[in-house]
């Protein structure tokens, strides 16, 4: 039987400093994981809106052939900054922000292992992000989008060398990501130390929530995969400022080497972005299906396998580079192999729903949307792993569609679901279900309207990163449909922001455990007190609150 401190009311704070400036100061100097988590997610959502606006201009420009909404220079800056922002300033901060907030609560801890390092991580991200956006003010200023980088989010050499990218736009890309990268590694180290050392009594590794397991895998991948990017970026800095020739092909350097180093980071990076989404739905689906996750040990094993295999597939981004048949085959093998543990997880989630009593609250709606869309994304990924087919599809809109299905249809959907799920814990109030349903359906319609046709445009030969296209290629209709999806997605985000705004003030009070869930974060107040738990919890199974609520049939003997 688990002995758990029952939920309690929030005690009054010891000192109350009122006034806006005092409250702002509190947030600025905080080292509390919950506050930092909120700051990460809020900042990430702010960048999400900005990057979404950039994407809207891109889709406006591409809606018809031969359009001239923006010049090619501005377009190239737009897609570069859109991609860079979404990966480094939306995806990363949001997933690590959630982990920041949830991991200590889920393992019954007081905070992360290194609270000051945690704060450092946040501010490194924020300042790095601001540095990237400061680039818009350089050069010609906002006209022509200033000195914003225009080399694509993966910045292939030698386009990034001084000879082909004069001025400082590439340096903004380089330095801002370098700075943000340090913060991300710091946070990952923090999460690993926290998870391995600070679990409450009774919580062996085999009793951790799946969310914590997957964030552990993500943090491990980050520690291994982010430094290679930093290394490549240092090399690029040496090339651009000290006359080195790492990637300068005219002096014997290697353009392909940049690609290898970048993608050695870049591929794990996309798993670093997506696995937290898996982690979120692994908590949401069981609760809203009213069933324990089907096959917990296999889900853990699959997550570990994904973490390991993700480090072995990087050159599948380089099948058209001419690495030779043996290497192409090897990377095809590893890429196809990684689809197995990924597929397994989908089966585990569906099997959890099977035989359940599914309640379609907004978090579950987003989780279901994720299931279908991520299935598509995974299958288009398998298509891309077939190397000769890849030779047609890579660098075309097919790939653009594929990775947006992964990162928007997958990650963003799970993030929205997670926000609806954990918002009550963070704020003490529920988000409106009615607005949530509008948000969901508008986004599903808009997202699919935009990204489904782009698969076909790619198959019709449309390459990516082009600011316009000829009218006689047969791509017009698909691009127009894709652009028509934008207003729906924009409306969805507006509805979401309104929902947040209204619910913060007038949302229904949530109490400790509005969803009747089973993990430790629901065993304390909403919002939790600064120290999280009045007494350190002791657990005896994977679902401590299930044990509390079902003393006649606890989880322990079944595990």
């Amino acid at each position, binding site marked *: 039987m688990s002995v758990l401190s029952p939920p309690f009311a929030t005690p009054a704070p010891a000192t109350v400093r009122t006034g806006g400036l005092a409250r702002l100061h509190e947030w600025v100097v905080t080292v509390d994981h919950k506050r930092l988590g909120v700051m990460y997610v809020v900042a990430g959502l702010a960048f999400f809106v900005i990057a979404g606006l950039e994407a809207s201009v891109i889709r406006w420009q591409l809606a018809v052939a031969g359009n001239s909404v923006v010049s*090619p220079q501005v377009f*190239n800056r737009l897609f570069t900054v859109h991609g860079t922002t979404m990966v480094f300033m939306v995806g990363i901060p949001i997933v690590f922000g959630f982990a920041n907030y949830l991991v200590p609560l889920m393992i019954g801890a007081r905070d992360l292992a290194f609270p000051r390092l945690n704060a450092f991580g946040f501010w490194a991200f924020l300042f790095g992000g601001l540095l990237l956006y400061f680039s818009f003010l350089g050069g010609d200023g906002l006209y022509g989008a200033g000195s914003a980088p225009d080399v694509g989010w993966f910045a*292939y050499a030698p*386009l990034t060398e001084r000879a082909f990218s004069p001025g400082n736009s590439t340096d903004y890309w380089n330095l801002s990501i370098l700075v943000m990268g340090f913060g991300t590694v710091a946070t990952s180290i923090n999460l690993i130390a926290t998870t391995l050392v600070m679990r409450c009594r009774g919580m062996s590794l085999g009793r951790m929530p799946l969310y914590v397991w997957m964030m552990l895998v993500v943090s491990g991948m980050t520690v291994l995969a982010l430094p290679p990017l930093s290394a490549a970026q240092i090399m690029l800095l040496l090339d651009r400022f000290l006359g080195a020739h790492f990637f300068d*092909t005219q002096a014997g350097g290697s*353009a392909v080497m940049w690609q290898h180093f970048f993608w050695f980071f870049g591929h794990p990076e996309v798993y670093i972005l997506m696995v937290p989404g898996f982690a979120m739905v692994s908590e949401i689906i069981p609760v809203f299906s009213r*069933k324990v996750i*089907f*096959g*917990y*040990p*296999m889900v853990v094993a699959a997550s570990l396998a994904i973490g390991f295999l993700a480090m072995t597939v990087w050159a599948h981004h380089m099948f*058209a580079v*001419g690495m*030779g*048949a043996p290497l*192409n085959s090897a990377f095809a093998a590893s890429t*196809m192999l990684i689809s*197995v543990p990924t*597929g*397994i997880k989908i*089966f585990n989630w569906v*099997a959890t729903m*099977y035989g*359940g*009593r*599914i*309640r*379609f609250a907004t978090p579950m709606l987003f989780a*279901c949307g994720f*299931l*279908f869309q991520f*299935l598509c994304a995974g299958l*288009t990924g*398998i*298509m891309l792993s*077939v*190397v*000769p*087919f890849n*030779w*047609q*599809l*890579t*660098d075309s809109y097919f790939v653009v569609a594929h990775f947006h299905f992964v990162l928007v249809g997958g990650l963003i959907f799970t993030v929205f679901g997670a926000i609806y799920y954990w918002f009550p814990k963070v704020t003490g109030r529920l988000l409106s279900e009615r607005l949530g349903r509008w948000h969901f359906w508008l986004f599903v319609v808009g997202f699919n309207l935009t990204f489904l046709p782009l698969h076909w445009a790619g*198959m*019709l*030969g449309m*390459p*990516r*990163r*082009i*600011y*316009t296209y*000829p009218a006689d*290629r*047969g791509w017009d209709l698909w691009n127009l449909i894709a652009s028509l999806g934008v207003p729906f997605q924009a409306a969805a985000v507006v509805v979401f922001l309104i929902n947040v705004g209204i619910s913060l003030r007038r949302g229904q009070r949530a109490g400790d455990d509005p969803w009747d869930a089973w993990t430790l974060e629901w065993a304390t107040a909403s919002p939790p007190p600064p120290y999280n738990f009045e007494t350190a919890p002791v657990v005896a199974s994977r679902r401590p609150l299930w044990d509390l609520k*079902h003393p006649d*049939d606890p989880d322990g003997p*079944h595990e």
Partner: protein
Amino acid sequence: MGRRSRRDAAIAGGTYAMIPIRTPSIFAPASTPAFAIRELSFLVLALVMFIFVVVAGLTVYAIVRFRRRPGDDGREPPQVYGSTQIELAWTLVPFLIVVVLFLTTTRYIFAIETRARAANALEVTVVGNQWWWEIRYPALGIVTANELHVPVSDPAEPRPTFITLQSADVIHSFWIPQLAGKTDVIPGKTNRMWIDPRTPGTYVGQCAEFCGVQHAGMLLTVTVHPKEEFARWVAAQQAAAVDVPEARAGRDVFTSVACVNCHTVRGTPANGVFGPDLTHLMSRATLGAGVAPNTPKNLRAWVNDPASLKPGALMPAMKVSGDELDRLVAYLVTLR
């Protein structure tokens, strides 16, 4: 016509009639690598659709069958913690599928990549530049730009074209979807690919690796000629530049205004190599690698200020005044 070519012609006209003929669809192949890829893609698409139907179907079933009904008593359903047999099965089956898919894929990889060079193959070197394509036929002594001309490769009498890819500056990618998969064009690395187009016609493509401001303006056409027609094209291209006495005044402008620093016109002293070879400029259908049709009016606009047609183009505005410009253009239009 053999059975296969009739089928291909029928496909081109019939089933794919909904795709306008200039659409470079990967499902309208005209050359062996593209055919092989389409064949493989049908297998993959079938597999992927099968998986989608099964998994999505099960998910829909679960959503519909196990949703909470209005009269639900609020009890928790039976908690099922897992099943070793089921989990083993759904690990093994995908793994086997992956093995089969991998073996098939590898077979196609090697078949396409390690194809031996035929003795009678046409050799072409394509050099990617920002933002145009230089096309050289080393054995034939031809240098042209942006339009690749090759002989048809009848399956009964194959004559493939082997293309060597090099870059003068940054990474580009050579992609004509109907003829083959794309191959990157990388500075410091020489890549090779091959095509054997079976049906005469014009096939379009463009650069497929972001290479700077006018990446979108780096279009490609491959014109596939029947045997005799190709021989005629070669002969015409091999000839030195046409010398029309009335246009000599323009040729003097050409020489004096530094055009010769970048451009070659064979048969004249002009032998610059930074820009496209202009010896048979008027034999090309477009200017600026596809951004505008090759008409005297556009040519005039281009020479006056390339950025007016292709913003960001590396050719500087030559700042040639009205009269001189007229003479220059009058000369250029004689370079058939």
